[in-house]
């Protein structure tokens, strides 16, 4: 397999799963002929036909609601929300139905479904094309939230999400859709939902991130390494449910932690990770857990969006501060 980009990883997983299982269908705005506005679904309509690669009218609640019905009648729908900022139109269908059908019916009506949506700032887009609100979905009982950070993980996690029996919100870091390439195996690869990965080992501090913040966090780790600070870096991959085991095992060793996300700070994902560390290993923490996050505002209009996003410098600085304590 040649080296591929993250978006190609998404595309590959979709192709593979559609070929493996004829019940898998893709639906959304412009997912057919156009191949998706980011080309995530390119080539699918040619291979699987317009009945399984469905261009829908412009209605997010309609798309998710239709997917709910499809899942009830034997399909595994993969609806796309064109941008996460437009998924709110379908919020009620996701919260009231996608997240609750299994619960409501005590499993009589399961809800296998993967809701794909690109998220995040950094692509010089209009307003509402740069949001990062994974916390909404993570706070919604019944959903799983998965966010890949590399091409290989995109492919392996999306495959896993499609095979997963519960509904998964698959949040795609569009800022790194094409940022770099990675080798993926010829054989279909699947990674477990709910597992984080230590992507860099270190003993001084644990830095936790996911999605588009991973390259920045790794860059910060390299900057710190130059100064002799060995940062351990964890890629969450699944934001909900959190892989406490991996996080706690690491922070127990390092005694210090830092969480990075581009979502607004207040009531954001980092708060939950801090709360878990507080719950479980409070007395083993040697310093407060740092959070390096977006500010409490919508992502700024794009000329100034880089001022909003956590930079490697800022991440490294906060790590240094934590190490001083």
């Amino acid at each position, binding site marked *: 397999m040649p080296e591929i980009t993250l978006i190609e990883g998404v595309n590959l997983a979709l192709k593979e799963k559609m070929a493996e299982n004829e019940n898998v*269908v893709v639906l959304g705005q412009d997912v057919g002929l156009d191949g998706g506005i980011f080309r995530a679904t390119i080539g699918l309509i040619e291979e699987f036909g317009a*009945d*399984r690669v*469905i261009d*829908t*009218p412009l*209605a997010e*609640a*309609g798309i*998710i*609601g*239709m*997917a*709910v*019905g*499809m*899942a*009830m*009648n*034997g*399909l595994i*729908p993969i609806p796309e929300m064109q941008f996460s900022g437009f998924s709110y139109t379908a919020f*009620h*269908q996701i919260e*009231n*139905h996608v997240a609750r059908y*299994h*619960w*409501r*019916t*005590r*499993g*009589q*009506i*399961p809800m296998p479904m993967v809701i794909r949506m690109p998220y995040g700032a950094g692509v010089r887009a209009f307003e509402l094309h740069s949001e990062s609100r994974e916390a909404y979905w993570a706070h919604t*009982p*019944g959903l*799983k939230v998965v966010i890949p950070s590399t091409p290989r993980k995109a492919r392996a996690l999306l495959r896993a999400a499609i095979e*997963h*029996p*519960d509904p998964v919100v698959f949040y795609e870091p569009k800022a790194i859709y094409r940022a770099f390439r990675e080798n993926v195996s010829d054989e279909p690869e699947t990674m477990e*939902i*709910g597992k984080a990965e230590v992507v860099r080992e270190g003993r001084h501090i644990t830095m936790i991130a996911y999605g588009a913040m991973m390259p920045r966090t790794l860059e910060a780790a390299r900057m710190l390494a130059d100064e002799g600070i060995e940062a351990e870096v964890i890629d969450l991959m699944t934001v*909900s*449910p*959190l892989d*406490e*085991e991996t996080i706690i095992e690491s922070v127990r060793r390092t005694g210090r932690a830092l969480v990075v996300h581009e979502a607004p700070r207040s009531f954001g994902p980092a708060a939950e990770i801090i709360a878990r560390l507080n719950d479980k290993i409070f007395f083993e923490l040697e310093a407060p857990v740092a959070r390096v996050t977006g500010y409490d505002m919508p992502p700024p209009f794009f000329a100034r969006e880089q001022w909003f996003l956590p930079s490697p410098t800022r991440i490294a600085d906060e790590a240094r501060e934590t190490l001083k304590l």
Partner: protein
Amino acid sequence: MPRRIIERPRGIEYLSILDEKGRVDKKLEPDIPEETLKAIHRLMVFARLFDERTLQLQRQGRIGTFAPIKGQEAAQVASVLRLREQDWFVPSFRETAAQIHRGLTPQDVWLFYAGYREGVRVPEHDLPLCVPVGSQCQHAVGIAYASKLKKRDEVTMVFHGDGATSEGDFHEAMNFAGVFHLPVVFVCQNNQWAISLPRERQTASKTIAQKAIAYGFGGIQVDGNDPLAVWVAAGEAVERARSESEPTLIECVTYRLAVHTTADDPKRYRSDEEVKEWEKKDPIPRFEKYLKAKGVMSDKDFAAVREEIREELKTAWKETEQVIRELEATRPDVIFDAIHAETPPELAEQRAYFLRRLEREGGRHA
């Protein structure tokens, strides 16, 4: 080039066969087998008596808030009876009669209204009732899409209220149904009220049926208290869905004779006179006149049906009480059951915590 009419939408048809007085339009009268006539009758009466019994139970505090269907029996019974078993039934929250026809038992319904998740039993190709108004319409569309994709001979019938037509969900579902040519029948239970909002203030269109024009398919208005008219319209729509894969909107003009739910006080917003007027149009006496005139059933038969149903309900409630006692004795960590297919570790931990507390508190608290 100039000013000209480019589209003349079809006129909106109104269908009524059996009028308030029990007179039938012979030219339009459908040929319904006797057994089916009896089935329609029994289900309508069952629904009425079930409603009454359930209201009693609510008043006695045995169950919680309940949404009666009184007055709307014909609209939902004569329509849902048009479905075959393999067809899909998608209710709103006021189709108890239809749900019972599809396989729910009084016990299921009572357990649901008594606040037990165990009351949500789902017969195959049915959905449970849907609380968020209108949101079930899109599910029907997705179900119908899957049927069509898999080339399965399945029709989907979805119920919704007049109020539901104001929700974006209804609109998006109607539009998708039109665009994808889906075998789905929308049955609007236009019972004139959405809690306190009268039909005329729900929408400025003269009929609800004409809303179908916006989506490129057919709509029809029927006397929803006339089982014959509903039967005919639903039959045509189901057939159109089945053979042409085309959707239809049926507006059943009916009336909610009772409260919105037991938490509601309709005296605040509507007059007794209006209710009395509509009581005269009650579908059940009307249909019984028809059955008698046709010689299908007699007053004695009617009484026997009622007696039989009352007995059935009596037994059913006794059994339900027993089940409730059993449920109450169940360890309350069942609230943690089946939230996901794969339980997240934090939830497993929360359940363990719950059980620890429960044990410590001798089962009284958690």
